[in-house]
């Protein structure tokens, strides 16, 4: 009897799970139907309004005149439609399309959404206030960025960056730390939404003590903007830092802006104990086109580390004046082991690329 009760319980539990699954089927089917309906509505909107929006781009119609013709309940479709164009267009067309948002009733519509409790509404609105630069949204974005919701944080941070709210930088960094599952790339994506002028703020931050990952991210931002002014600061970091990631990132920055004053400091790293740093140092110094270190790079061909040897051979081939000849001499000499084999390989690959 006791066993029978257990069997009934098992069957009932499974039947409960099965009923739940069927309810979920109903739910996902309903979701699919709603999504299809919305897609259909978006299409209907497109058919009706697309031509008007295109003619707006070509003539001098006032933005509020066009928006006034569109019923409020269709705003979401209008914004959805504009999203792709705002992401891809630039110049005058972008300004015209932005004016449909930042000079019309749509601004109030979006600000209202930013104040709502609905996270997806906030995320949706943050994108548009950010990309069209609605300054009035700043206090709301600064409030929303403090959310524990990752999506709200990210969309608010990007919007603040897009409207170049430099005074929000500390807030963004402070809030970013809360989300330990967000990699540094996410911070990089946010910071590179600011105007290039953010680099000055970043240089200031690099002079204070920060973590290795933050320093690396900041250096990447400087590299992204090819910010020449940061050269001396980065050189100082290169000389004093003992952190592998930071050293490699400094080298990449120097390579990107071709900061020749750093050549001597970089050359010292050609003998660094870590192959990763030696490889990057070879890449950097060969881009600086400083002839005085060619002999040193040549010695790297005879290292024990294969990757370093390969990088040195590539540098000689691509950046030395007589690189091809030097590699040819080496390639067919005897008893040169790996360095000769790598030289032969690179030379034959070069010939294939040139179609010889």
């Amino acid at each position: 009897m006791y066993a029978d009760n257990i069997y009934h319980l098992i069957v009932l539990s499974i039947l409960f799970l099965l009923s739940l699954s069927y309810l979920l089927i109903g739910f996902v089917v309903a979701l699919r139907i709603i999504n299809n309906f919305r897609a259909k509505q978006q299409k209907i909107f497109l058919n009706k309004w697309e031509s008007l929006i295109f003619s707006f781009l070509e003539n001098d119609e006032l933005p509020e005149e066009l928006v006034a013709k569109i019923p409020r309940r269709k705003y979401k479709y209008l914004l959805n439609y504009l999203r792709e164009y705002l992401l891809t267009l630039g110049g005058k067309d972008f300004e015209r399309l932005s004016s449909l948002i930042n000079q019309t009733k749509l601004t109030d519509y979006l600000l209202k959404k930013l104040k709502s409790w609905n996270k997806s509404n906030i995320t949706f609105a943050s994108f548009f206030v950010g990309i069209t630069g609605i300054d009035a949204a700043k206090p709301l974005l600064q409030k929303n960025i403090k959310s524990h919701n990752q999506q709200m944080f990210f969309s608010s941070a990007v919007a603040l960056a897009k409207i170049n709210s430099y005074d929000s930088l500390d807030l963004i960094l402070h809030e970013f730390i809360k989300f330990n599952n967000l990699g540094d790339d996410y911070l990089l994506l946010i910071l590179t939404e600011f105007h290039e002028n953010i680099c000055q703020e970043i240089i200031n931050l690099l002079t204070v003590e920060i973590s290795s990952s933050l320093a690396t991210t900041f250096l990447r931002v400087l590299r992204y903007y090819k910010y020449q002014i940061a050269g001396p600061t980065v050189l100082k970091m290169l000389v004093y830092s003992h952190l592998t990631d930071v050293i490699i990132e400094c080298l990449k920055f120097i390579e990107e802006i071709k900061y020749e004053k750093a050549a001597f400091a970089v050359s010292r790293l050609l003998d660094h104990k870590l192959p990763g740093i030696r490889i990057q140092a070879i890449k950097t110094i060969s881009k600086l086109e400083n002839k005085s270190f060619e002999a040193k790079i040549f010695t790297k061909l005879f290292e024990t580390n294969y990757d370093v040897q390969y990088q040195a051979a590539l540098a000689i081939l691509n950046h030395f004046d007589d690189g091809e000849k030097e590699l040819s001499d080496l390639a067919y000499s005897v008893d040169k082991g790996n360095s000769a084999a790598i030289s032969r390989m690179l030379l034959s690959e070069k010939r294939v690329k040139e179609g010889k």
Partner: protein
Amino acid sequence: MIYLYYLILSYNYLLLIYSISIGTIYLLLNILSFKRIIQYKRKMVYVDLKKIFKFQNFKSISIIVPAYNEENTIVDSIMSLLQLEYPDFQLVIVNDGSTDNTLEKIFNNFSIRQVSFTPFYKLQSKQIKTVYMSHEYPSLVVVDKINGGKADAINAGINIAKNPLITVIDADSILERDCLLKIVRPFMENENIIAVGGTIRVANGCKINHGNMVKIGLANSWLARFQTVEYLRAFLFGRNGFDVLNSVMIISGAFSCFSRDALISIGGYREGSIGEDMEIILRMHNIFRKEKPETKITFIPDPVCWTEVPEKLKVLRSQRIRWQKGTIDSLRLHMKLLFNPNYGALGMIGFPYYVLFEMIGPLIEIFGYFIFFFSFIFNVVSMSFAVAFLSTVILYGIVLSILSVILEELSFKKYPGIKDLFILFGAALLENFGYRQLITWWRFKATIDYISGNRGWGKMEKKGFSIHSEE
């Protein structure tokens, strides 16, 4: 006689516990996966992958494609792979001593020329005869070698590969264009990651043109549809769930990405291995996690590789027998992981799960079905027991299959039509009446074969997209 009665009764009870356990583990994995996939999706929604790669912060990849007698598909495959979105990759096609015109087809279509080569590393492989490079596509390298099997061909490819990340794919797989951008992300985010696997989906019913996915759809055959649901269950919540526990035990050989240094340091793929894709992952866990417990092998639910599944029972049978033998072989080689706390959840949960449910599970189930049937006939078990048992075997199975389709619909929604959705739900229901039992039967036979010393993996029948391709 009474002892036999109690023995049979006990076996029935054990079988019921076994069925409830496996279903419940899957249910828990489903819950873990659901959370993980939703988090992953949210993270990816606002990531502009192309912009991230503009930061020049990526690692270059060498894609290794072992090819044996692929003359029908090799040109389309290469064209498709060359179009992948990634800032810097090298494509290494390893012609593993094909006896058809695979090499000639490459010659005729990609203007390849012989280059001098030096193997970067010394992984064991059969002799490389020649290495070619394409003048038209300098990132394309073709290695021509003596036949040695898939693992051997991959090792030869690794020896020639120049980049720090190695992606291994099957020659007849179709990759989504941005899959490399996605599969590399874990390596960029966490330096402890040494291998990443991606989701494999069923390509039957999809429209493929010259190696590119044109339209996603479902197959007409129910056998392929059952496998579609099966793949969803295995990849969306099986592997994702184990990933949460850092216990990914297998990464599909059809699409995987490794740190080259990690591959080199463990000596590459094991020659002659039946299930090389599982064996290499277990070996990686075995070697790296002992030294460095924070080492991670992960699985990404999104980067999708499409592959054609068998639509003939005979082909499916030989595939499943091969898979089962591969699983047993790999587990047997790394038994020291079993209940070994030094390997964390992998040793205490993941590995025991595979041993109990994947390795010896088919034996327990098939013997169990027979014993249950005769127990029921001879009134050893009651009607309520029978109902409970069948509920766990059939209804619980239906719940889990339906949940996997729901998970797919709430996350990636790869199948566009609402009709597809209903078909998937239909397949999730029907696969529990015969298909699953048939698969278990084949796995049972494979296990018996393996135990009795028949460990060969039989003849692998070639698949190909050419028949189904849209011209």
